């Protein structure tokens, strides 16, 4: 059931520290000043004139640096203020009239924002300049003048643009998550049929999106781990995507590099593909498994590793993916036998995997609540996990996830 939806924040704000706020202010102001300068000359010179070269350079540089820092450039007109990447930008008193003029011009054209997720080429900036000519194009869409569209830059049009931007990002989030889950489900399907597996690079791109999105909207990203499906056929994909969400979030909180978070995400997506080799009747059985079924389930980690290792990739990421799939199901302190070797990814995945499994209804038991799941993980199942990591996970990620529940 949907609860009363809270009013969305006007502009999505990126994670930051004081240093990045100051840097964003500086770059945002630089971009605004450059745009103002362009505007000032737009009525006097041809849009191809060299007089625009310095401000366009400055604008491009600012955009590039913001892309480098935040991964995106979003200039929004919210009320009377300009926001850059969600942060209100102060302008020097001397530039206030020009900023006001810029605001008026943008409103006049129905533009409420300019954004770029990649470095805009010079040609795009020249085309942006064209919009400020005395005779602007009769019609604009998100790529500017439809007759000469931007390659990279995008416009937000109309009063709902800010909200639309947020919706669009939420949409991207949902799509990336869905692509991750669908990839795993489809992979399992292909493996069951003995058909060629899906290209790993597709998964790599999906996980790149997930890592980028986690950085820009961590709470909404983490909320994706709440997705559950009733259809048993879809369970493994959604489970893997949830584990990826949890692992990427956990990795981010630990301060892991972008590459390592990607490795974790990839390992999460592939950690249960071995289930393809287990008959559906075993996976969907609600009662106790017979000996054959138990043996098959116990073999699943090795079967997952097999599905990864058969591709013949020997990069560290691929090997770690295989090992994590195998090791995340091992007990850190087994009841008998020697201590197993479990790598870092395996330790992280073991925690995220168990957490998602415990909070999901399975054919053989109902879902546990978040609190109950964390209690089980830190008490009766503690022998399975790295105690330091599980404490951090419960203290940070599980708590954050609880905060994403309707009503907090």
């Amino acid at each position: 059931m949907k609860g009363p939806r809270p009013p969305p924040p006007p502009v999505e704000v990126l994670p930051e520290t004081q240093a990045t706020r100051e840097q964003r202010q500086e770059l945002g102001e630089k971009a605004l000043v450059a745009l103002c300068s362009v505007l000032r000359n737009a009525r006097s010179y041809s849009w191809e004139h060299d007089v625009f070269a310095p401000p366009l350079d400055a604008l491009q540089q600012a955009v590039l640096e913001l892309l480098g820092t935040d991964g995106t450039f979003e200039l929004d007109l919210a009320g009377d203020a300009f926001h850059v990447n969600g942060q209100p930008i102060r302008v020097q008193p001397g530039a206030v009239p020009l900023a006001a003029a810029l605001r008026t011009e943008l409103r006049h054209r129905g533009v409420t924002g300019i954004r770029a997720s990649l470095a805009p080429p010079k040609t795009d900036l020249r085309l942006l300049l064209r919009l400020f000519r005395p005779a602007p194009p009769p019609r604009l869409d998100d790529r500017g003048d439809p007759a000469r569209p931007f390659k990279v830059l995008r416009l937000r049009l109309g009063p709902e643009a800010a909200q639309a931007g947020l919706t669009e990002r939420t949409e991207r989030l949902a799509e990336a998550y869905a692509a991750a889950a669908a990839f795993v489900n489809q992979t399992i399907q292909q493996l069951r049929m003995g058909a060629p597996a899906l290209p790993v690079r597709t998964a790599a791109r999906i996980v790149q999106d997930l890592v980028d999105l986690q950085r820009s909207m961590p709470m909404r990203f983490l909320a994706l781990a709440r997705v559950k499906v009733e259809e048993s056929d879809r369970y493994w994909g959604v489970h893997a995507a949830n584990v990826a969400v949890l692992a990427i979030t956990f990795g981010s909180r630990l301060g892991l590099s972008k590459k390592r978070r990607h490795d974790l995400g990839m390992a999460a997506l592939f950690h249960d593909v071995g289930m393809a080799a287990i008959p559906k009747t075993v996976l969907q059985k609600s009662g106790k498994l017979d000996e054959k079924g138990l043996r098959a389930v116990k073999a699943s980690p090795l079967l997952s590793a097999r599905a990864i290792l058969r591709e013949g990739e020997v990069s560290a990421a691929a090997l770690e993916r295989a090992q994590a799939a195998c090791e995340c199901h091992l007990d850190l302190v087994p009841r008998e036998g020697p201590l197993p070797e479990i790598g870092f990814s395996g330790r992280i995945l073991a925690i995220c995997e168990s957490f998602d499994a415990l909070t999901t209804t399975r054919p053989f038991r109902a879902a546990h609540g978040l609190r109950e799941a964390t209690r089980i993980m830190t008490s009766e199942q503690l022998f399975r996990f790295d105690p330091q990591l599980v404490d951090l996970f419960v203290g940070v990620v599980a708590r954050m996830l609880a905060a994403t529940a309707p009503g907090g």
Partner: protein
Amino acid sequence: MADADAALVHGALAGLGRALARLSADPRAAGQHASSLEPALPGLRDAVEKYGTVTVAVEPGALRFEGVRVYADELGAAGFCSRLYRDGIRALTFGRGLMLPELTAFALAAVPGGPEGDGDAVGELWKADLGSIQYTAARGDRLDQGHPAAAAFAQEVQRLAARAREAVEYVDADAALLDRTQPPPLWSEEQHRKSDPQSWSEVARRAALTIQRIVEEDLAGWDLEALEESFARLVDEMARRTEVPALVAALEGAARMGGAHAPAFRAFVGRRLADPERLVRAAELATAPVKAAAQLLPAWTALLPVDAGPALIAALRAAREDVAPALAAAAAQRCDSCPDDVAEVLREGSAAAAQAALAALPEADRARMAVEAIAHADDEVRLQAVPLLASDPALAPERLAPLLDDPALRARAAEALSSCAAPPDEAAAPIVERLSASSSAKLGDEDLGALYRALGRLGGPAAHAFLSGRLARPAKGFLKRRRSEQEQLLAVEALAADGSMSALRLLEETADPKRGHAPAVVSACLAAVERLRARRQVREGRK
């Protein structure tokens, strides 16, 4: 853009293109990337300084700037432009602040076949997270339309996206506010290093053992061949990266591996390991300054097939002297596949290699091949070869007889004859002949003792006859007395070693003072008789 300005940009991009093309030609030489790229950096920096950013379109085999082709890749489809384009990169943008480390990181990701070049260029550039080099890429998170699962995948995405949207929309305002703050990381750099060492060697070693477990537990199914190939690639990569301990662990694991498919797995891996180039690399790695290096060649060669002899010999010829013994031993174990080469090693190889080869010769080939080692210049090698000649009882007397004339080998040859499985009289004949020859007077005490001991151990009528003759009829003459007495004493010892009834009787007779033998001989006979009787009593008592 003025002509001069255009030339500046064109020159910079062409310079970069040429530098990257040079790296494409030798992508694995990562250490040289920086020096190759350095000349391209100033031009690129100048262009970027002048224009703020320089965006270049990537095409298959070319770079284009503002519609003008500024660089054509001579390597065509094998070049970096094609790789970038194939992987989805459509434009590259160079911004201010470009430094050599960033350019090098870019090259590592962009060059095909480079250390990072096996993966997807977009992925590698994304991971490299380069501040001053941005890229525009085609969307890659969907399956190509041509993929058989594309339609099902797209439908599944749509269905699941609806669920995901609901979950995200539920996030309330307070929680969304948390999106604005990013608390400091929980771990310090030190903790990262400690908990997540990111060692390729470690994960590769564990992955190799995982493959072995999959095969051992009969879970490989129709992927057995693919897993064999993966294991072989892992081994290749370990060798390339000089990860000797991991390599040893992987190879020893393969040798230990059980299960129904283990022999087939080992056979596949063995064939790969027998590749001459790989063997040469293994020989190089065996000299690495790590403890595990000593175990590498034994572990490696243990998996080689029986016909790997020629490859081993080739590696042996190129190898350093300290690793030659291991290769020689492995070749000797497979001497059926390269008998002439092994023979050469036994004749002319270094002493250590020849000795290792001798020790490793299969039982069936020992006698045949050890003959070659008799011609070796080193006495230690020859001495080691002598007992091996005795392993073929039919040929042992014939092959060992000439060695009784060789002062260096005489004692060992006599010993070998005494222990060979040939009929005692046949084995004793060359010893008797040597002792009966006039030149036997020149034999040293040690050799003489060895020859008599050999006869004693052999027993048999011929040995017995000779010993009894020497005991009963010593040579006469003042000058020969000492020698005769010495030979009598040796004969006593030999007969005592013989231990037969006839030997006992002969000793009893000789011990009789009436026979007129020297007191030392009489005493020795009495002692021997006593010893033999005691031994017999013990034996009979037991019965």
